[in-house]
Every structure is written in structure tokens, then in C-alpha cells.
């Protein structure tokens, strides 16, 4: 597939440039942690409540962190107009977006992996028995966040008030993904844990549909 090789190369570039400084990663991780701690001040979680609210808090925190941290995705290409250089390369324009979606997915997943043990400790949840299904839900949910966030980063970076516009555009659109991720995770935190096929299926469908729409219409976002 003519898409695969340039996407992989660009993905490598994205990952290398981030891991050089790791500033995005650290900032995201600290932000989500802070949000989780602050949430604990708004109510006093007992074990039972943690199972009820914990999933919602986790996904909300991820959503907010994502909406801030996905902005640089396209914004930093503006500094030296590197996007123009990328566009001139003999590759499908969609590879540029695809590589950024995958890169953002990696960043967010790394942040989540670092986050989970702390989340489990703070809210007294036992995550080890459900690690497999939880990983699946995290992957699907984070992919939704990354796809929509990256595409909207491309949109908002070409408008005014871009830092504020990205969360504003993203959050309503991601509402179904938030609901599905939260409900799927909540099911896993129950006793006994249950992997909801309908919610997981909805998440998967969400990812497939929006990745397809990005593939079909993404190139228009990279125009001059």
C-alpha cells in the first residue's frame, strides 16, 4: 500500500522529535495526574463509589489532557512552515495526517500506561485481573481521541483562537466516544467484571468510521 511506507517514516520522525525532549509526554502525564487529584477533592470516594465514578473521571481527565496536548500536533508545523515542505514530498497527503494520528496515539497510550498504576492506587481499584480487556478499551478510546483530536488540530491551527478552538470543537464530537469508553470501563470495574460488547463495538465502529472519513477528506485540510 502506497500509504504504509511514508506513514511509517513520518511516524518515526514524529516519535523521534517528541522523545528528544519528552516535553509533551511529561506535561500530559502531570496534567492528568493533577486532574485526578483535584477530582478527589470534589467528592470523597469510597471503594464502591470509586467503581462507579472512577471510569468517568479517568476518561474525562484523558479527554481534557488530550484536547490540550493534541494542539501542538499541527501548530508546531507552522513555526518553520514545515508543513509546506511535507506537502511537496511525493507522498499521499493523508500519510501526513495518518502519521500524526498514530504518533498522538502512541503519546497518549504511553501517558496512560504511566498513569494506570497511580490511578489504581489513588482510587483503590484492582486493575490487574482486567488488564487485557482494559487495554482494549483504552486502545479504542484513545484512538478515537487521537483521530478526532489530530484532525481538529489541523482545522483549528488555521483559525483564530486556535488553542481554545481545539477543545471546543473536539469535546461535543467526542461525546459518544466518551460515553462508550466510560461505560465499557465501568463494566470492567464492576464485581464481577463485564466487558460490554455493545459499548466496545460502538467504540470500534466510531474509530472505523472516523478513520475512514479522515482518509476520504483529510487531504483538504492540508491545502494552502
Amino acid at each position, binding site marked *: 500500500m502506497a500509504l504504509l511506507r511514508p506513514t511509517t517514516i513520518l511516524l518515526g520522525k514524529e516519535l523521534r522529535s517528541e522523545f528528544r525532549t519528552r516535553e509533551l509526554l511529561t506535561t500530559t502525564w502531570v496534567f492528568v495526574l493533577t486532574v485526578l487529584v483535584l477530582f478527589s477533592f470534589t467528592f470523597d470516594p469510597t471503594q464502591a463509589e470509586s467503581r462507579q465514578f472512577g471510569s468517568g473521571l479517568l476518561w474525562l481527565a484523558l479527554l481534557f489532557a488530550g484536547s490540550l496536548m493534541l494542539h501542538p500536533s499541527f501548530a508546531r508545523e507552522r513555526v518553520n512552515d514545515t508543513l509546506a515542505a511535507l506537502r511537496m514530498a511525493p507522498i499521499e497527503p493523508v500519510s501526513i495526517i495518518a502519521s500524526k494520528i498514530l504518533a498522538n496515539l502512541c503519546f497518549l497510550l504511553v501517558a496512560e500506561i504511566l498513569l494506570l498504576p497511580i490511578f489504581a492506587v489513588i482510587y483503590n481499584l484492582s486493575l490487574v485481573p482486567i488488564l487485557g480487556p482494559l487495554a482494549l478499551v483504552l486502545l479504542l478510546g484513545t484512538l478515537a481521541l487521537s483521530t*478526532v483530536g489530530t*484532525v*481538529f488540530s489541523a*482545522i*483549528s491551527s*488555521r*483559525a*483564530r*483562537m486556535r488553542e481554545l*478552538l481545539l477543545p*471546543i*470543537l473536539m469535546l*461535543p*464530537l467526542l*461525546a*459518544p*466516544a466518551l*460515553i*462508550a469508553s466510560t*461505560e465499557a470501563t465501568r463494566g470492567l470495574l464492576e464485581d464481577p467484571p463485564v466487558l460490554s460488547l*455493545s*459499548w466496545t463495538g*460502538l467504540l470500534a*465502529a*466510531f474509530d472505523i*468510521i*472516523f478513520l475512514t*472519513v479522515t482518509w476520504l*477528506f*483529510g487531504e*483538504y*485540510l492540508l*491545502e494552502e
Partner: protein
Amino acid sequence: MEQGTASAVEPTGPGQRTGAGLHAAETLGVALLLGVAGYAAMFIAPTERTMGVIQRIFYFHVTSAWTGFVAFLITFVASIAYLRSRNPKWDWLAVSAAEIGVAFFTVVLITGPIWARPVWGIWWTWDARLTTSFVLWLLYVCYLLLRTLVDEPERRAVLSAVLGIFSAFDIPFVYFSIRWFRTQHPQPVIGAGGSLDPRMRSVMLLCWAALLAVMVLLLRQRYRMEMLRHEVEDLQTDSARRGEPA
């Protein structure tokens, strides 16, 4: 009912006055249809057993949501057509339909609480239809917001078209996810569904027809406005190029 203003783009003359007259006639016709539908909803439809008179809000509350969907569908189609053809007329249609869709969902969000208050004693309930309407309302308000934040017309059209397409694909997800969520975490429901008396169904369809007519009327007016705005922008660019003060 209100008088329409000029609808043609020609300079002052008989054409403009005919355009204005035609619009006034259309507006009157639609207002009449709306009045007939309202009368039917108030007096012809049978009274519902459990909720009584207040249930008659249903005929416009639900049909406004349906009409809003139709408007957003128009935005979707127009967005795709714009990206394909780059003809600005599709962009004008897309933004007009989005704005009118927001107007219709505003009606849903206003009539919902007015209905909920006497029935449940609360102003707001996170029932499936109201929540979905709220999210969709937000979605397309964001679309309109994006448009105000991009100055260059062609870039604005392209970015909004992509956003319009994404928003349209989100609609079924919003609908189903909120519905499933509400079956698991029930809340007071505004106007439970259930089977519809055939007379109620006819009145419902009549109200929907009236609202669709309102939609078309508002859509055309808003489209003309967008078209004129485009013309003003062109003329201003021309005069700036000639070095005149705007």
C-alpha cells in the same frame, strides 16, 4: 406577518419590488400553514389521557427535532458538494442550513423544559431526546463558531466543509450512545413514546410539513443573505484595489 425585504440581487427597479412582494406572499403562505398546523395540534388532535393538554407541545417539540435533522443533512450534502466542485454556492447552502438547524434545535431545547416543568416539576431532565438535542445543538454551534474564526473565504469554506462532514457522521453515534446510556441509567422521559392514535399521527405529519415549509423559507432567505454578503465582499475588494476608501 412580517414583510420580507428585497430578494433579488438586481439594482433598484421593478424586479426588486416583485422579489420583495413574492417573498412577502411566501411568508404569508407559510405562516398560514403554520397557523393551521397549530390549530390542528391545539383543537383537532385528541387529548392525551395521562398528560392532558400539555402533551400538545409534543407536536412541535418532536417535529422540530426531525426538521433540524433534515437541515443538518442538507449541510452534510452541501459540504461534500463544495469539496468536490469548489462552487461557493454549496458553501452558502451549508452554512445557511447549519444555522437553521441550530434554530430548530433551539426550539426543541426551549419547548422541552416548558413541557417538563408542569409534568415533572423540574425544568431539565437528561432524557435521551433532550440530551441528544443539546449535544447536536452544541456540535453545530461549534461549526458556526469556526466560521467566525476564519477570515479567508475559501479556507473558511474548506475547513467548515470538513467539520460539517465529521459532525454529520457523529449524529448517529450521538443518538445511539445517548439512547443506550439512558436505558441503563434511566431519567424522567419527556413524552414517552408508545403507539400513536392515527389522528395524532396525521396532526404530527401536518405539523412536520408546516415546519419543513418554515425551514425552506428561512433557508432561502438566509442563502440570499450569504450570496449578497459574498457580493459585498467582492465589491469591497474591487474598490480597495482601485484605491478608494471602503
